[in-house]
C-alpha cells in the first residue's frame, strides 16, 4: 500500500527493446509490411491514360478541381456517397475482423504498427539486437553511441521524409510535383504537409511507438465491445504453462498423462513437433495427436520455463501471460518467440497461440476445443459479412449503373414567371449538365412530349450547348408558353426537359414544372 505522497501520478516512458524473432507470424508481418508500404509509396507513380483533358495519374485526389480519380473510376463531389459507402464498409470490415480475429488490424496493418516495425528494423540493423541496444542505452554518451544514434535518426528521418513526401503526391501530379519540390517551386502547402507528416512519422515511429497505441488511439478502448468469447486472439494457455519455473524445479515427465486431441487443439500437437507448422486458421485437421500433459498441473511444473522470450520480443513491452490486455496489439510475435523455445525444449508448440476464450474451459477440462472454422463462421460474423457485402454490392451497382450524362434542373422562383410584351408567359430554369467525357460534348436540349411550349437557351441560338470536358455546364434555359396556350394560364404544368449528347446519343430527362399566369 503506497501513500499518495510517495506515488507519482505520472510515469516516464520505459524504453522497450524488442528482440529479433523469426517464425511464421514474423514472416507474415514482413510480407504485409512490404505490400502495404509498397502500395503507399508506389501508387502515386502509377500512370493511367484518360485522354488529353484529364490527368494521367492512376490515383489522384484533385482537391482544386474537386475530382477523385481511381484508375478507371472518376468520382465527382456529388458522388461523395461512394466515399461514405467505402467508409461504412471499412467500419464493418473492422468489426468483422475484430469479432473474428481480434486486433488483427492493430497487429498487422495499422500504419503505426507497420512504420514502428520498419523503424525497429532500422534500429536493430544500426544498433544491434536487444542486448546490444540495452547496453547502448545504459552506456554513457560517447563518440560510438553518438555515431550510432545519429545514423539511426538519419535513416528514420529519410524514411519519414519519404513518407510525408509520398502523401502529397496523392494530391497532385506526382512527377510535376517532385520536380517543383526539388527546385523549391512547389506550393507552401506541399512543404507544410510534408513537414507535418515527416515530424509525425519520425516521432510516432521512432519515439512514441506503443505510447500512441496505449494513450492516443481510441481503438483499443473500443475493442471490448467488438470482441467476444469466440474471438480468436493471442492468448497464453496458462493451464498448460503454469506453474512456470526454471531448471531444477522441472521434474520432466513425472506424472504425465497421454491424451488424444484433434490437431487443431494446439498447432504444436500435430505430428510435426519440433518442425515448422502453419498458422492455426489454416489447420483444421481431425488428425489425432498425442500430447504429454502433466496429470496434476497444479503441482507439477507447467510448460512455461519463464524464459521471458515472449516479453522480450513484445513491441508493446507487456507480458501476454497476464492475459488479454488493452496494450496488446496482437502482433503474434510472442507466439513465434514461444514456439521457438518450446521447440528447443521439446515441448509442443502453441503455449501462446491464437485462441478463443470459450475454448479455455474445454481445454482445461481436457476436452477438445472447437475448430477455428466454427469460431469464425458464427452468426455475428456472418451478419457483419452480410452487411459488408450488401454495401459492397450496392456501391458496385451504383458505380456500374452510373449514367453517362446527368442533368439537374432548378426553376428560377424569383419571379416564377415573366409576361412578355406579346402576352406569352416565360419561365426560366438553371439547367446543369454533367459531361464526364474526356472531350467537350454538344448537348441538345429539347422539351419532350407534344406540348405547345418552346425552349430556348440563354447562350445559344441553336438548341445545343457545348459542355467542356469533365465539367458541369450551367445553362439558363427559357420555356415559353404562347398566349392562349393552356400552360400560359394554368397555375402549374408538368414538363420534361430532355438532354441528348449529340456525340454518343446518350439521353437523360429531368422533370420540372411550368408556372403560368393564373391571375
Amino acid at each position, binding site marked *: 500500500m503506497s501513500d499518495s505522497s510517495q506515488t507519482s501520478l505520472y*510515469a516516464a516512458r*520505459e524504453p522497450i527493446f524488442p528482440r529479433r524473432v523469426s517464425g511464421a507470424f514474423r514472416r507474415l508481418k514482413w510480407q504485409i509490411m512490404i505490400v502495404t508500404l509498397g502500395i503507399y509509396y508506389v501508387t502515386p507513380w502509377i500512370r493511367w491514360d484518360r485522354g488529353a483533358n484529364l490527368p494521367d495519374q492512376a490515383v489522384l485526389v484533385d482537391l482544386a478541381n474537386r475530382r477523385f480519380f481511381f484508375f478507371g473510376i472518376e468520382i465527382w463531389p456529388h458522388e461523395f456517397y461512394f466515399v461514405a459507402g467505402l467508409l461504412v464498409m471499412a467500419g464493418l470490415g473492422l468489426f468483422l475482423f475484430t469479432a473474428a480475429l481480434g486486433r488483427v488490424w492493430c497487429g498487422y496493418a495499422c500504419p503505426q504498427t507497420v512504420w514502428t516495425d520498419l523503424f525497429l528494423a532500422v534500429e536493430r540493423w544500426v544498433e544491434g539486437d536487444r542486448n546490444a541496444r540495452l547496453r547502448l542505452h545504459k552506456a554513457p554518451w560517447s563518440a560510438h553511441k553518438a555515431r550510432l544514434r545519429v545514423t539511426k535518426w538519419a535513416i528514420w528521418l529519410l524514411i519519414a521524409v519519404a513518407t510525408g513526401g509520398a502523401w502529397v503526391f496523392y494530391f497532385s501530379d506526382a512527377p510535376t510535383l517532385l520536380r517543383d519540390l526539388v527546385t523549391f517551386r512547389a506550393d507552401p502547402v506541399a512543404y507544410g504537409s510534408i513537414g507535418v507528416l515527416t515530424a509525425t512519422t519520425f516521432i510516432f515511429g521512432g519515439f512514441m511507438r506503443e505510447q500512441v497505441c496505449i494513450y492516443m488511439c481510441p481503438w483499443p478502448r473500443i475493442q471490448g465491445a467488438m470482441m467476444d468469447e469466440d474471438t480468436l486472439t493471442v492468448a497464453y494457455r496458462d493451464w498448460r504453462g503454469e506453474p512456470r519455473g526454471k531448471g531444477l524445479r522441472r521434474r520432466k515427465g513425472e506424472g504425465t498423462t497421454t491424451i488424444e486431441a484433434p490437431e487443431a487443439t494446439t498447432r504444436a500437437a500435430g505430428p510435426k513437433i519440433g518442425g515448422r507448422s502453419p498458422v492455426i486458421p489454416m489447420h483444421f485437421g481431425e488428425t489425432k495427436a498425442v500430447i504429454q500433459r502433466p496429470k496434476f498441473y497444479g503441482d507439477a511444473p507447467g510448460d512455461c520455463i519463464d524464459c521471458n522470450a515472449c516479453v522480450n520480443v513484445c513491441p508493446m513491452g507487456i507480458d501476454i501471460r497476464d492475459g488479454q490486455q488493452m496494450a496488446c496489439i496482437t502482433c503474434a510475435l510472442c507466439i513465434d518467440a514461444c514456439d521457438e523455445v518450446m521447440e528447443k525444449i521439446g515441448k509442443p508448440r502453441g503455449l501462446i497461440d491464437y485462441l478463443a476464450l470459450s475454448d479455455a474451459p474445454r481445454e482445461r477440462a481436457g476436452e477438445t476445443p472447437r475448430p477455428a472454422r466454427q469460431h469464425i463462421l458464427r452468426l455475428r460474423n456472418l451478419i457483419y459479412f452480410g452487411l459488408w457485402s450488401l454495401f459492397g454490392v450496392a456501391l458496385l451497382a451504383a458505380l456500374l449503373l452510373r449514367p453517362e450524362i446527368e442533368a439537374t434542373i432548378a426553376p*428560377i422562383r424569383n419571379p416564377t414567371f415573366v409576361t412578355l410584351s406579346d402576352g406569352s408567359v*416565360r419561365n426560366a430554369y438553371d439547367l446543369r449538365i454533367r459531361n464526364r467525357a474526356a472531350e467537350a460534348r454538344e448537348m441538345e436540349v429539347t422539351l419532350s412530349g407534344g406540348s405547345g411550349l418552346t425552349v430556348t437557351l440563354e447562350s445559344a441560338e441553336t438548341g445545343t450547348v457545348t459542355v467542356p470536358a469533365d465539367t458541369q455546364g450551367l445553362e439558363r434555359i427559357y420555356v415559353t408558353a404562347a398566349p392562349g396556350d393552356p400552360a400560359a394560364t394554368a397555375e402549374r404544368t408538368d414538363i420534361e426537359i430532355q438532354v441528348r449528347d449529340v456525340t454518343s446519343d446518350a439521353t437523360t430527362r429531368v422533370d420540372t414544372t411550368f408556372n403560368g399566369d393564373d391571375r
Partner: protein
Amino acid sequence: MADHKHDKTRNAEPETTGHEWDGIQEYNNPLPRWWLWTFYATIVWGVIYTILFPAWPLVSTATAGVLGWSTRDQVAQEIQAVEDANADMRAGIVETELARLHESPELHDFAVNAGAAVFRNNCSQCHGSGAAGAEGYPNLLDDAWLWGGQIEQIAYTVRHGIRNEDDPDARYSEMPGFGEILGEEEIDTLVAHVRSLPDGTDPLAGEGGQLFADNCAACHGEDGRGMRELGAPNLTDAIWLYGSDADSVRQSISEGPYGVMPPWGARLGEAEVRAVAAYVHQLGGGEETPADAPAN
C-alpha cells in the same frame, strides 16, 4: 523495463494511489509524463498566444497583441487582395466596348457575376432581388424597354438615371396630367380605347382614336408602339407598368406618371455600372446592339 515491471506486479499487491473510499481503493495507473509536459506546453503556448494576439479583455477594449493583428485588418487585406486580383478584369470591363463584351466569355462572366452583386446591393430595393420589378418599377426580365434594351442603353440609364435632378444627363420626359386637359367623359373613352390596344384595336379608329391622335400619338406614336427617345411606353403590348385595370389606366392618364431613378455613375464607378448593365442585359430581355448603332 517491461519484464522488470512484470516481476514487480506479479503475485504482489497492485500499486494504488492510496485513495480509499469505503474500502474501495484506486489503482495507480500513472499518466505518461509526456502527456503532462504536453499539457504544460499548451499552457505556455496559450500564454504566448494571448501576448501575440488580441486577447485580454479590458474595460472598453482588449489588449491589442504585440503582432498588431486584427480581424478588421485581415478583412481589409483580404478584400484588397481580391481587388488586386480582379484589377485586370475591372480594367477590361471599362476598356471593352460593351456591345462586344460577350465576345470574351471570361470577361462577360466576370461582369455578370460582379453585376449581380451590384444589383442586389443597389437595385433590388426597387426592381426586386429577382429583377421582376413592381408596380411603377419596371420588370427587367421581360422584353419591353422604356428607354432601350441594348447594353449601352442600359448602361446609360444606370449611369445617369431617369428624371432626377442630380444628373444633368439624366433621361428626361414628362407626361402631362390629362385630368386638367380633358373632360371626364373623354378620359373614360380614352381609358377604354387604350385598354383595348393590346387586343389589336387600330389606335386611330373611332372616337377614342381621335382623342388618341390629338393627345397621345405625339409621344406614343400613331401606331401606339411608344417612342424610346422619350421613354414613352408601347401601349399595344401586354405589359402595364402601372397596372392594366381601368382605374390604374385612368390614374396614369389623369395624373401622368413620373418615375424617377437616381444616377448611379458617380456612386458606383464605371466598372460597376458596366457590370450591372451586363447583368441586366442577360436577364432574358436584353436586345442586341445593331452594327450601326451610335455610341450612346
